[in-house]
């Protein structure tokens, strides 16, 4: 499984916010299963990586984070 690191560092927080804004990621705040949230986020990372033509790994790797940090339009890329 592409599993995110346990300790939620700043980058993870940033990525979460990015995915909420632009990829319709909704964190289930009171989910008992942390791994479910992580998997859901990894799915969204995959969606974002696919959109930008990055290698689709589901991991919050350097290139993915770099792309997230670029200046951009505020409209979501993916809409539910």
């Amino acid at each position: 499984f592409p599993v995110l690191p346990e300790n939620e560092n700043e980058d993870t927080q940033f990525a979460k916010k990015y995915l909420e804004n632009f990829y319709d990621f909704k964190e289930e705040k009171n989910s008992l299963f942390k791994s479910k949230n992580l998997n859901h986020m990894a799915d969204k990372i995959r969606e974002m990586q696919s959109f930008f033509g990055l290698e689709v790994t589901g991991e919050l790797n350097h290139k993915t984070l770099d792309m997230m940090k670029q200046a951009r339009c505020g409209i979501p890329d993916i809409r539910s």
Partner: protein
Amino acid sequence: YSTFPRSPTWKKEDVTYRILNYTPDMLQADVEEAIAKAFQLWSSVTPLRFTRVYSGQADIMISFASGFHGDFYSFDGPGGTLAHAYPPGSGIGGDAHFDEDENWTKFPTYSGYNLFLVAAHELGHSLGLGHSNVFGALMYPIYMARDIRDYQLHQDDINGIQALYGSPRESSPTKAFPPQEPTEMTPAEAPTEMSPQEKPTRTTPSKPPSRPEDCDPRLTFDAITTLRGEILFFKGSYVWRKSPYFSEIEHDTISSFWPSLIAGFDAAYEVDKKDRVLFFKDDQYWAVSGYTIDTGFPKPIQNLGFPTSVRKIDAAVHDQNTKKTYFFVGNKYWSFNENTQSMERGYPRKISADFQGIGHKVDAAFQKNGYFYFFHGSNQYEVDMKKQKLIRIMKANSWFNC
């Protein structure tokens, strides 16, 4: 390209816009011009006409704001989100908001964001387009500084907006006001919702430069190069691509590959072993590898060893066998050693002295399958360099299956 859910569009061709406020980063006139030019991009490829009004409710209300500004998408300070816009609809529908915490600029710089480029993108949303994942497209969500002189929409953007509104009408009447300085209107001509005291309207013209026909016998080229097995023919902002794998010629624009490069090259050549193409325009040159423009460019052509008297070059071709690149200027040529990265001694020499049958200016040149092809006007000359022999003369567009 993509659209918003249910593909909302404006159900009319005359769409109004209003600029509610300004950024202190730019002169008001520059803000107005940037936005008018952004609208012109879209009106040039659709039947839509955009008219600016100065009071009341317009279809597209344009404003600058910081942080929370009354809608669901608060801005986030410098960087990050630059702007957003809403799809066609009443009320906030169509409106475009720009983050005032950004540094807005009239020209693309590395320390700010060009208002024309960002406005053109957001107006794509105001007209119903979503984000595109085509790199180089205007509707690609990531900001990319690029050359805005003679900026053209990417084909993907054109496909998207024409899917929503169709192509421009042949005889789309431009209102009585071509886009010069506003002149006074007679009340009889003023749109009904405006009182005569207000400023007259400005309407965007629709006239994209069209690409010459493939088989036009008069077709000439600015520059030609090979690129990873394909042959790219350049004229103005247009590119004809001949691939060994497809019989059809593909039509693109320079900006669809290299958004920040200027259209209208003078020369181009590929150094195949380095997977690198160099483009020349006036006294500057750029190096690209695939989509990526190498850092540190443009550079002055004098770096290659040209005297300062040479202000531009006509054509260039790289000889894969000798690893030399020949630069053509007027009736002379230079030889550049790609291994030593230096111009060879004893040059310039007369083209006619060394290139059999080529006694005139060369517009473009490339090498393919051991033969050199020199273009002059609407003709091309196939030369066997080893045998120093002119093989045949053909039409310049003979590669297009005419």
